[in-house]
């Protein structure tokens, strides 16, 4: 049997048929993201279907939820997405450092360590703001099963049932907390993963322009999470 010898056992597919044309970690992450789309389809699709059946009774946008705060939070997540892609560009250019003075430029040039840190901070910030928002909402009486008896929101709903969608508050609460909760869970997983990579791979400068697969892969996940939020923000908070 004729065989070919492997030169680099760490990099499958070590002599292989042409496949996707991208390395396996990236391919795997894209396939995983496709599955995550189906997961959010179940949640978001159910929301669309449920709300469609009772569209006229749904609470008006801004009545219960804090749109300005969430708008700011959305901006924070978008910023983290930008810093993520800047981190990716940095390591592609070989900039493993934190900050470096560049002649001719006023601002210092950020490297991988800088931009990834920004991403982690913005991501953690997003989760924190969302947690604070949840605590505030539950305090006001907005729970997964609707407006809590005797709470502030229940009183508002009695006074103005149309604006607060009194009849279908149960569905409002169910869909809101499930969708945003699982999105927040995805963000948290992303932040934890980035922290792990930061301490085990980024700080010891293990990534190089020849091999920065981990950054690209976590970047794809992070942008996906941002993408889902862009959709969620519109259809949950603004409509």
């Amino acid at each position, binding site marked *: 049997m004729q065989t070919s010898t492997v*030169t*680099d056992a760490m*990099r499958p597919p070590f002599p292989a048929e042409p496949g*996707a*044309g*991208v390395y396996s970690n990236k*391919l795997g992450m*894209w*396939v995983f*993201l*496709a*599955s995550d*789309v*189906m997961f959010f*389809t179940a949640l978001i*699709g159910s929301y*669309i*279907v449920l709300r*469609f*059946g009772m569209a006229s009774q749904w609470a008006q*946008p*801004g009545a219960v939820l804090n*749109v*300005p705060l969430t*708008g700011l939070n*959305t*901006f924070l997540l*978008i*910023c983290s*997405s*930008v810093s*993520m*892609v*800047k981190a990716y*560009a940095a390591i*592609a250019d070989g900039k493993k450092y934190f900050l470096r003075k560049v002649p001719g430029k006023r601002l210092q040039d950020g490297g991988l360590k800088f931009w990834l840190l920004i991403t982690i901070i913005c991501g953690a910030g997003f989760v924190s703001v969302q947690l604070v928002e949840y605590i505030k909402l539950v305090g006001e009486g907005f729970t997964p099963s609707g407006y809590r008896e005797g709470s502030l929101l229940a009183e508002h709903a009695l006074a103005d049932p149309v604006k607060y969608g009194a009849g279908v508050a149960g569905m409002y609460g169910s869909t809101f907390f499930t969708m945003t909760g699982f999105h927040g869970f995805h963000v948290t997983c992303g932040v934890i993963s980035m922290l792990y990579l930061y301490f085990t791979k980024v700080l010891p400068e293990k990534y190089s322009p*020849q091999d920065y697969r981990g950054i690209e892969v976590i*970047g*794809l996940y992070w*942008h*996906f999470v*941002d*993408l889902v939020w*862009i*959709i969620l*923000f*519109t*259809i949950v908070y*603004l*409509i």
Partner: protein
Amino acid sequence: MTTPAPTTHVRPNYMLIWLYLFVMTIAEVLLAFELPVARNLKLILLLILAIWKAMLVALFFMHLKFERWRLRLIFLVPLPLAAILVTTVIMEKVF
């Protein structure tokens, strides 16, 4: 390990995309709350804005614009499935 193939595409201006996203988000919030637009039209415009923003992230930040079709296909495949599920269940509910 041989040196990787050089990039064949121009790197997009990430800060410009960020600006677009920022402006579109402001536009969305204004549209939703301030502008006097009919409800159905508002819904459609907001959805278009959201999808446009999502596509900017997918195409530029996730580099899909510069990847092969095969990779884009992986991300595109679930979308018609999602559409079929939602459409069918709505048709069913309407009945």
